[in-house]
């Protein structure tokens, strides 16, 4: 125990999002709109992780997410794990899952798609969740994991 240091301080009530790969931290912040929240939020990044190499962690005081909102981050942080904290205790653990539909968030990779030309919220049907494949509701073309660009 004596070698362990808590690099990001504990919270009383709220949500801890752990196991975010370090390179995805700012995408997660952007997707969840954390840059526009006035609650106390602490971030840690480039922390050592056996699984991810370098991981990031976010601790959000007094913030709780609906499943449909938090699942949005599965596109960029598929390994993310959530701990729901009440009175310093973990009361619930959750994993994220890519939803069946993605609204907004992702840019359609087809340069000739109308969504890249007019002000339109993108909509995709998720064809594959593991190696993510998204089918644009407008141009019907597929945007894959490799070409996925996060909006905002």
């Amino acid at each position, binding site marked *: 125990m004596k070698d362990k240091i808590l690099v990001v301080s504990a919270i009383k009530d709220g949500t801890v999002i752990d196991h975010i790969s370090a390179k995805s931290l700012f995408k997660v912040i952007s997707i969840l709109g954390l840059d526009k929240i006035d609650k106390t939020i602490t971030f840690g990044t480039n922390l050592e992780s056996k699984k991810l190499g370098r991981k990031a962690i976010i601790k959000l005081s007094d913030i709780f997410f609906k499943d449909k909102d938090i699942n949005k981050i599965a596109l960029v942080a598929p390994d993310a794990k959530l701990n729901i904290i009440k009175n310093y205790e973990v009361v619930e653990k959750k994993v994220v899952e890519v939803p069946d539909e993605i609204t907004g968030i992702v840019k359609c990779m*087809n340069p000739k798609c109308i*969504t890249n030309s007019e*002000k339109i919220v993108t909509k995709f049907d998720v064809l594959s969740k593991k190696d993510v494949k998204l089918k644009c509701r407008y*141009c*019907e073309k*597929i945007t894959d994991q490799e070409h996925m660009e996060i909006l905002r």
Partner: protein
Amino acid sequence: MKNRSLVSINDYSKDEYLKILDLAEEFEKKPVRELLAGKIVATLFFEPSTRTRISFESAVNRLGGRIVGFSDSNSSSVTKGETLYDTIKIVSNYCDLIVMRHPLEGSARFASEISQVPIINAGDGANQHPTQTLLDLYSIRKTQGRLDNINIFMVGDLKYGRTVHSLLMAMSKFNKITFNFISPEELKMPEEYKIVLDNLGLKYYEHKDFTDIVSEADIIYMTRVQKERFSDPIEYEKTKNAYILKDHMLVNTKPGMKVLHPLPRVNEIDPCVDENPKAYYFTQALNGVYVRQAIISSILGLI
């Protein structure tokens, strides 16, 4: 189908295809009907398309409707920088139905979400052109007497050709369809469509050359091989003449076999084929009017 836009061939079920084809048969018997009296159809062609536009306008005229619109975006407020959103919002106030062609993919789906009146997609970039597919189905059924148990040969640009992709998707809803694809290596049918056929257990064969294999065909569906699709111009020069249909190539084909082509044709069908009774592409274009009459009247709930 009443009040529902027709954006993608995948929006309609097999039964809905058949309903349109049955109606089109009625229009072929009696093309002039005053079903659209007092109705206005807007034809918004953000890029020019002579055949499709005239076919639609002819269909509306035969039904006794009126037409407003433009035939290329230079003569519309698009040149002033108006968004598609604004154009559709405004035009849908003025008419009962919008027929639109637009160079950007997904534009028709977007228009259908914001329009107060139904949209018929007359082509959105390389994406969809569903009325073409329905007239192709009509032509196949009319000449073969069936849509099941058809051996169809698709020839030319199978990579970028939206007509062959949509026709493949529509035909795959029927039973015992065999597909044969003849194309240069660079323009092969994309994997995603072959996966669809694999999943449905439908047979398909790929060929690089026009050979005697076409003797098995019920339908030969020709498309244009466009120069701009080739990264290597030498490769284009080498392949362009390999996919030209000539009269002698039809000698051993089945008596009832028909040659279809979405048109415009450039050089891929030798003009001497035109006189062959197996050439059907000009009648196919005529069928487009009956099919569009059927689609317009169904969507407006007039039949």
